[in-house]
């Protein structure tokens, strides 16, 4: 059992990141902290994807002058890159809207800046 822990360490870290970010998203009232929670969740999922493609002792997946031995999987890295780019756009849009909310309500507290109910 114990020898699997170093191998699974990235997955544990990803689970921890996602768990903490869920806590932040649900319980924090500050909108900026909420956005930070979503950024953390994105990092957790990205870490999970990259860790999936890792092979023990693997090299970079480039065939030119490749050293002998296993290579890590290239597809999860491509997925992660795409996901990072998308998340940058999402976070930028969120921050823009938060600035607008602050200009209108002079507050970043999600309870105080909330207008619509029911």
């Amino acid at each position, binding site marked *: 059992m114990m020898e699997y822990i170093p191998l699974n360490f990235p997955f544990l870290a990803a689970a921890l990141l*996602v768990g903490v970010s869920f806590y932040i*998203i649900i319980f924090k009232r500050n*909108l900026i902290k*909420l956005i930070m929670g*979503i950024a953390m*969740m*994105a990092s957790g*999922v990205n870490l*999970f*994807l990259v860790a*999936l493609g890792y092979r023990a002792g693997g090299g970079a997946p480039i065939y030119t002058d490749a050293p002998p031995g296993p290579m890590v*999987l290239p*597809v*999860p890295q491509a*997925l992660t890159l*795409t*996901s990072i780019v*998308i*998340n940058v*756009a*999402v976070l930028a*849009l*969120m921050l823009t*809207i*938060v600035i*607008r*909310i602050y200009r*209108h*309500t002079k507050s970043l507290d999600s309870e105080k*800046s*909330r*207008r*619509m109910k*029911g």
Partner: protein
Amino acid sequence: MAALITHSPILIIAIPLFAAFLTLPIGMASKKARNALVIVSLAFVAFLVFALARDISINGIHVYTLGATSPDLTIPTGVMVPVRIILEVDGMSILMAIIWSIVALAAAIFSLSHIASETGQNRFYTLLLLMVTGGFGMMFTGDLFNLFVFLEITSISGAALIAFRTRSADTQEGGFKYIVVSAIASLMVLFAIGLLYGQYNLLNIGALAQVIQYTTSDMIALALLIIAFTIKAGMVPLHLWLPDAYSVAPASITGMLLITSHTCMYAAFRVCFTLYGGMLDTPVVGWIIIAFGLLSMFVGVTMALRQKDVMRFMSYHAISQLGYMWVGIGVGLAVLGNAELVGIGGYGRDAMSGGIFHILNDAMYMPLLFFIGGALFQCTGTRDLTKMGGLAHKLKWTTMLFIIGTLCISGIPPLNGFSSKILIYESVYQFHPILAITGIIVSILILASFAKAFHSAFMGAELPGYKAVKEVPRSMIIAMVILAAGIVFITLFPSLIVDWTIHPAADALIDPEGAYITAVTGAIP
């Protein structure tokens, strides 16, 4: 023409994408040219969608491989699995695409006058066309990761459009809620894709469906995917963001957002029926889908009864209408294992046809009602139903169209809402009577609440505050008439529509032969 049809899946996605980036330079030069560009590109895309639909009804499923020497070369020579990006269009995806092309065109025409007084119109049309791109991508993609990418494109442009009217605080709040919910849902989708990729090293839906085992982590992936798409579709109890976002968006965008909800529903069913297919524990998952549907139907309509804001009122009705589709298709999923019940004449197939027919009908009358809500807001400057009154004296066209929409949504015969609801009632009654009874009660409540809304907005004496109200501009009426014409067409020829589009869509989801899978992987050995 043949080459155009062969390449049409990618053209349908690419034309709005290129047009989106052209709107900015062209819009700086001339407003008229920009409007013409938007309308012409969307009309051409609609033409391509209809041409592709005809091709699919003749030749069956259409596969397009990006970057291959020939578009149907799904698996490159010397490789065992499909590694390229593949677009796959079957009966169900093309039905969704037909809906999306009509509503997007109507929404663009409606926007011409609806946002005429706003600043930043070039960017509005850029975002609108990007949203169209994302929606078509989600419908056509045969690849899980591209599903995620297009989901994000739709969400980002949708959130920016909801928050487009920046001068009031509630639009910003609605947009923020939408983007937060979308970001969490899409990360759940990405996590599920990671779980599936980690086991099978595949991303293509068809190729995955062939090897999927339904292990524990597959179950987790399925749960994540269903919950994520349920959040994005806005089903009760995960609906809390939906009325906030829908009620503050410009009305044309609300109509389009509704179709993105339908598209997420389509993605959920694509996952359940095609990706997991026969491996699924169908009664359990089917009942979960039915439970979401029942809750949405009932909670949606009861919440709508007490709303005063006209757009919010209609948003809750939109939730309750989504419930009908989930119940219909959920019954089909619950009996999927029984070949007799999902075969021709079985009630499983009829329930699915009813649910899918209701998607088509809902996509015609619900955007129409949202557009009318936007027209009322533009004429009176308020969304509060209690402050409106006597508007039928001034808004003759709008009143007529509102009556058509109201009769459709409450399922009054012979309008199209009735033809799909009767199909659902008759078939789900055989599965479990309580489903049909709930559906009929909800339908009565819908009629009651719309009668109240109609009375408070249109009936009564002319109010002194609205003496100066004029009929809405022509482009808004044209957009509403396009949708009303769709309603009239479906009302006149329901059996024609069912035979041509609904049954192929239902059969594409049920699909005992696995045409969606063999189109990618070749014949099963």
